[in-house]
C-alpha cells in the first residue's frame, strides 16, 4: 500500500518508509508535556537528592529576602517613631501643642 502510494505521488517507496520511520523516532524522542504532577513513592537512591543545592539555595533565598525586608520595615518604622517622639517632645517644650 505504501509502495503504491509512493509510486502514485512520484515518491521512492524506500524514502517514504525512511521518512515515516524517522518521524516515529522523532515522536518517540520527544518528552511528554508536563501538565500535571504524578506522585511516586520510591526513587532510586542516586535520584533522591539530585537537586539539593538548588533547593537549599531557593529556600535560603526566600527566608533571607523575607527576613531582610522585615528588618528593613522594622528599622524604618523605628526611625520614624523616634523622630515623631523627638518632635513631639520639642513641640511640648516650646508650648506649641
Amino acid at each position, binding site marked *: 500500500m505504501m509502495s503504491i502510494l509512493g509510486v502514485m505521488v512520484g515518491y521512492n517507496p524506500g524514502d517514504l518508509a525512511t521518512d515515516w520511520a524517522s518521524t516515529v523516532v522523532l515522536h518517540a524522542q520527544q518528552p511528554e508535556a508536563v501538565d*500535571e504532577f504524578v506522585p511516586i513513592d520510591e526513587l532510586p537512591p542516586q535520584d533522591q537528592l539530585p537537586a539539593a543545592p538548588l533547593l537549599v539555595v*531557593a*529556600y535560603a533565598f526566600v527566608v533571607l529576602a523575607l527576613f531582610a525586608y522585615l528588618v528593613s520595615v522594622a528599622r524604618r518604622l523605628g526611625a520614624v517613631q523616634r523622630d515623631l517622639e523627638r518632635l513631639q517632645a520639642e513641640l511640648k517644650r516650646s508650648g506649641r501643642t
Partner: protein
Amino acid sequence: MPAWFTPATALCGLMFAISPFLIANAPYESTMGLVQKIFYVHLPSAWMFLIAAIVCGVASIRFLFRGDARHDRLAWAAAELVVLFGIVTLVTGPLWARKAWGVWWQWDVRLTASLIGWMVSVAYLLLRKYGGPGSDKLAAGLALFGMANVPFIYISVNYWRTIHPTTSVVPTLPTSFGLPLWFSTVMFLLLFVLLLRARVRLEEQRAELDELYLSVDG
C-alpha cells in the same frame, strides 16, 4: 497597629514553623524529583506578586481619581511588595528551571512579562524616591501598566505554549501535593497582609511626621 496584628503575626510565625514539615513530607514528583519542592514557595510568592500588583494598581486608580493620600500610601506599600515577592518568584523559578528544563531562563511570554511587571514596580519605587514633586501621580500612572500586565502574565501560558506548565496544574493536583501548596499559600497571604499593613503604617507615620515638621516651621 490594629488589634488583629499581633495574633496574626503569631499565627503566621507558627505556620512558617510548620510548613517545612509539610513540604518535606510531600511526595517527590515523578519527573522532576526533589527540585519540584521549590514549587511550594515559587507559586505562592508568584500569586502574591500578582495580588500586590493588582492592589497597587487599584489603589493608584483611586488615588488618581479621588486624590486621597490614603490610597497613595497603600499603592506605595503594595509596590514594595511587588518587588519583594517578584524577586522571590524570579529567583526561585530559574533555580527550579535549571534542573527541570535544563536552562536557567527562557524568554517565553510568562517569564518575560513577569520580569517586565517586576521592573515596572522597581521603576515605581525609583520614581517615588527620586522623582520629586508630582512623582506620586506619575508613579500611579505607571502602576496601571503594572496591573494591566497581571492577567497577561496569568493566561499567557495557556495561549503561547512553552515549557512552563499551564494553569491546569493546580486544579488537578493530588491532595498530597495540594495540602502543602494551599497551606503555603495561606501562609504567604497572611504574610502579605501583615507586611502590607506594617508598610502602610510606616507611610502613615511619615505623613504624621511631615505634618509636625510643617507645624514647627509654621
